[in-house]
């Protein structure tokens, strides 16, 4: 059932078993998983069923670090940011969960194996194809597609699979609306998670609407699922009892904000033989019940040996390069005049001379890269207030010289791989400098602000996503990521949401 919070009588108190704050990917997944169980679920969503500027404006805030668009990078209505999701899916690698001694603050309290079965369920809810993310044979199309044989053991080909993308708010709307044990309150904002006097448990949620209605939800258990930025903001502004905010005894809430810095054309690649490039490298490709794309990633062996963090690289066709290109065609302004010469050099030692002037092809690239967890990269509360009278978000996103160097080194590894192969060459366009003047781009991936750690001094939630020091407050979403890995976060946050749903369902089944 959907209920418009603006129609709720002022002062109403709603008793429930589980309150889920936020109807985005994580919140809807958990509500769906709890559907039909003997548990009363209250799903609380700030927006309505469609985009509304008034609700969206609650996301506006202040960016004081690397410039970042706090409002347009997420959506505040039923379905959340899945309403503009690109659909890229891929699980993290096992190494991403490990404590890597070269990555400060790394190490999840769970392993890949803990999450593996939930990745399969995440694949289902995101309507992705078969779980074949690393299966070269599966995508070979009876031998027609071959991966580029890059030697050296540093670079490998892996695959993303695509969700349609599933707009959770549209696709699962009826299921949530008809769920007998789920009540969804729209246009209802959590003004504060109010704990008991000792701040060890959630007592109730103060709810408000932009129209001025105020009511309460009194749950036995709360799951905060408002997104990677807002989760931290809600905890910080829930400070009427615990002055630093809930779960923030150790000043960790909001810290370690991570994104995936995106760089367009960090390198360009020339290949002498474009014929061998399988379609799945160049664009989205439908194959064997899935829509896929191959990417270049870096092997565990390389990451360990070189003490690097990961990068994902996409690859697309740009232009044929011919010996008889005029200088205008080569594009002097973009310093392309050497491209035929580079291909001639490759052909001198590793390929047959060009007979008809066609020397090869230029490929463009894009990349997303892992940033190291950094406690000073953080979400705070601004002095300015929103229409509900709540302190807005103040973001201080930091990217370091090391983050930049890491990407640069990975690009050099890519260059080594193509060079050793002998069929291509790599031009690094990513500037070799100390600092990020600004992010070349980002993925709208908000991670780390309520990070998972077994140690309350180092994380906000434990391995079960429960807030340290609180008995009945859980967090869902990419804010619990301890490290960001390099892949898009949605599939992993969906896997974690399934795992959390099982955990809380079991608690209620046991009568906890």
């Amino acid at each position, binding site marked *: 059932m959907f209920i418009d919070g603006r129609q709720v009588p002022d002062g109403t108190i709603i008793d429930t078993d589980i309150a889920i704050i936020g109807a985005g990917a994580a919140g809807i997944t958990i509500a769906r998983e709890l559907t039909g169980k003997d548990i009363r679920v209250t799903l609380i969503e700030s927006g309505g069923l469609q985009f509304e500027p008034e609700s969206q404006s609650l996301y506006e805030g202040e960016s004081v670090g690397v410039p970042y668009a706090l409002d347009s990078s997420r959506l505040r209505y039923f379905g959340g940011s899945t309403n503009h999701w690109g659909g890229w899916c891929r699980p993290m690698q096992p190494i991403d969960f490990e404590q890597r001694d070269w990555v400060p603050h790394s190490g999840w309290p769970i392993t890949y194996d803990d999450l593996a079965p939930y990745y399969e369920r995440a694949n289902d809810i995101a309507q992705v194809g078969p779980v074949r993310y690393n299966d070269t044979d599966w995508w070979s199309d009876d031998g027609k597609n071959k991966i580029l044989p890059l030697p050296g053991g540093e670079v490998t080909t892996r695959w993303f699979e695509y969700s349609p993308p599933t707009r959770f708010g549209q696709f699962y709307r009826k299921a949530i609306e008809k769920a007998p044990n789920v009540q969804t309150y729209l246009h209802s904002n959590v003004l504060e998670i109010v704990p008991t006097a000792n701040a060890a448990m959630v007592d109730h949620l103060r709810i408000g609407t932009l129209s001025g209605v105020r009511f309460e939800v009194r749950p036995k258990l709360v799951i905060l699922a408002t997104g990677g930025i807002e989760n931290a903001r809600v905890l910080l502004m829930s400070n009427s009892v615990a002055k630093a905010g809930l779960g923030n005894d150790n000043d960790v809430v909001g810290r370690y904000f991570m994104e995936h810095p995106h760089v367009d054309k960090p390198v360009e690649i020339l290949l002498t033989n474009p014929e061998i490039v399988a379609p799945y490298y160049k664009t989205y490709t439908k194959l064997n019940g899935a829509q896929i794309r191959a990417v270049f990633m870096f092997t565990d062996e390389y990451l360990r040996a070189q003490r690097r963090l990961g990068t994902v690289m996409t690859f697309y066709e740009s232009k044929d390069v011919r010996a008889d290109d005029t200088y205008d065609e080569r594009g002097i302004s973009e310093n392309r005049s050497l491209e035929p*010469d580079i291909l001639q050099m490759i052909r001198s030692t590793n390929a047959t001379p060009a007979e008809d002037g066609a020397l090869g092809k230029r490929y463009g690239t894009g990349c997303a890269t892992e940033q190291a967890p950094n406690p000073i990269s953080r979400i705070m509360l601004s002095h300015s207030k929103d229409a509900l009278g709540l302190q807005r978000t103040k973001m201080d996103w930091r990217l370091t010289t090391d983050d930049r160097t890491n990407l640069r080194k990975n690009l050099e590894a890519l260059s080594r791989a193509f060079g050793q192969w002998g069929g291509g060459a790599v031009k690094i366009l990513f500037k070799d400098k100390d600092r990020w003047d600004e992010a070349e781009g980002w993925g709208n991936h908000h991670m780390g602000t309520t990070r998972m750690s077994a140690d309350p001094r180092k994380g906000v939630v434990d391995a079960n996503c429960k807030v340290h020091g609180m008995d009945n407050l859980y967090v869902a979403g990419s804010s619990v990521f301890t490290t960001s890995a390099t892949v898009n976060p949605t599939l992993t946050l969906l896997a974690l949401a399934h795992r959390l749903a099982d955990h809380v369902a079991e608690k209620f089944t046991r009568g906890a």
Partner: protein
Amino acid sequence: MSNNQEHAHEGHPAISRRNLLILGGVAIVAGALPVTFLALEPDNSHFANDLMSLLAEPDAAARLGTEWRKVATIAREPAVIASSIGKRLNPHGWHNQGTPEELREALKAAIVRDYANNDMVSISGWQIARTSAELCALAASLSGDSTGDEAAPAAHAEHG
């Protein structure tokens, strides 16, 4: 019109003839070098010639070599560069052993080795194996390129 632009529109046979003339000059220059140098660097004019004969388009290599000289200090004398390349192919130098195909394979192996050892140079951003780059520098020297003359020491190849 610069030399580079002129060469870009020339046919392959004309370039080869010009290079042969230059290589002849290398032999004459080598003849004028001290005996000790010649003892260390035997037959490098022939070796340089053999290397050039492997190139699909020597002018393309020369243009890359010229570009590299703009940012790096590289030996100018063909004999010195050829000697350096020879040592990359074989630690004891390349003494005219083998067929052209064996030379090509040795070159290929050296290039793979360079990449594996992260021994790359950047030519306008292109990550090139040092052996390839030296081959380009050789081609540039043989084409009479004078880029970087002011900065380059007389006969010290860049290594490392």
